[in-house]
C-alpha cells in the first residue's frame, strides 16, 4: 500500500472503509503513531456509511485529558483483504493508528511528496 507525505508534513494514506450493509467510502487518512487504536472518523462519514454503533469508550488525548467517544464497527480494505476494525468517532481528519498497522512494515521518505509504503512484515 502506498501513501504520500503532504506539504503539511503529514503521512497520508487513502483507505477504503466499508460498512456491513455494503456502502463504502474512500477516505484520506493521516497515520498517527501516537494513536493506539485502528481508525477515527468524523460523525458525518460514520453517518453516510451507516456504520453500526458498538459502545462508548474513554480515550486519553495528547494533553492527558480524557473524553468519552462513540465506537463503531467497520471494515477496511487492507493490502487487498477486508479487515474488521473498530472506529472511534472523533472530529477532525481521519486517523489511522497502530492497531491497524500491526503486522506491517511502514517506511516513509519524509520530504514533501515523499512516498509512504506499508507492506506485511516478512
Amino acid at each position, binding site marked *: 500500500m502506498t501513501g504520500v507525505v503532504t506539504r503539511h508534513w503529514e503521512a497520508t494514506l487513502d483507505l477504503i472503509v466499508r460498512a456491513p450493509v455494503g456502502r463504502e467510502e474512500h477516505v484520506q487518512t493521516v497515520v*498517527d*503513531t*501516537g*494513536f*493506539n*487504536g*485502528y481508525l*477515527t472518523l468524523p460523525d458525518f462519514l460514520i453517518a453516510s456509511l451507516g456504520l*453500526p454503533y*458498538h*459502545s*462508548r*469508550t*474513554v*480515550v*486519553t*488525548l*495528547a*494533553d*492527558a485529558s*480524557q473524553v*468519552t467517544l462513540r*465506537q463503531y*464497527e467497520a471494515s477496511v480494505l487492507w493490502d487487498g483483504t477486508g479487515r*474488521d*476494525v*473498530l472506529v*472511534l468517532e*472523533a472530529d477532525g481528519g481521519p*486517523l489511522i*493508528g497502530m*492497531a491497524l498497522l500491526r503486522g506491517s512494515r511502514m517506511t516513509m521518505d519524509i520530504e514533501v511528496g515523499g512516498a509512504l509504503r506499508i507492506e506485511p512484515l516478512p
Partner: protein
Amino acid sequence: MLTKTYSTDDIVQRGQEIYERDIRSKVEADNEGKLLVINVETGEYEMDADDVVAAKRAKTRFGNAELFTMRIGHSAAYRIGSHLLSRKSS
C-alpha cells in the same frame, strides 16, 4: 420490552462502577492490556487480547444492550496523540 435509555455519562459511570465492584478483582491481575466490553445493563462482559474479537463477541452475545469498552489496567481504552510534556510553573 421496555429498555432504559442511558445517557453517555450513565454508560461510562455504570461501566466503571461495575468493573470496580464486580469484575476487577477477578481479571486485573492476569489480563493487563486486554480489551473488556461490559454490558452495563446486566454486568456481563467479554474480554480478549484482540480488540476486534472482544468487541464482536460482545456484540453477538449482548445484542443491542448498552456497552462500555475499556482496557484492563488502563484509565482509557485508547490514546490519541503523543504525550505532551506538562508545562512546569515557574
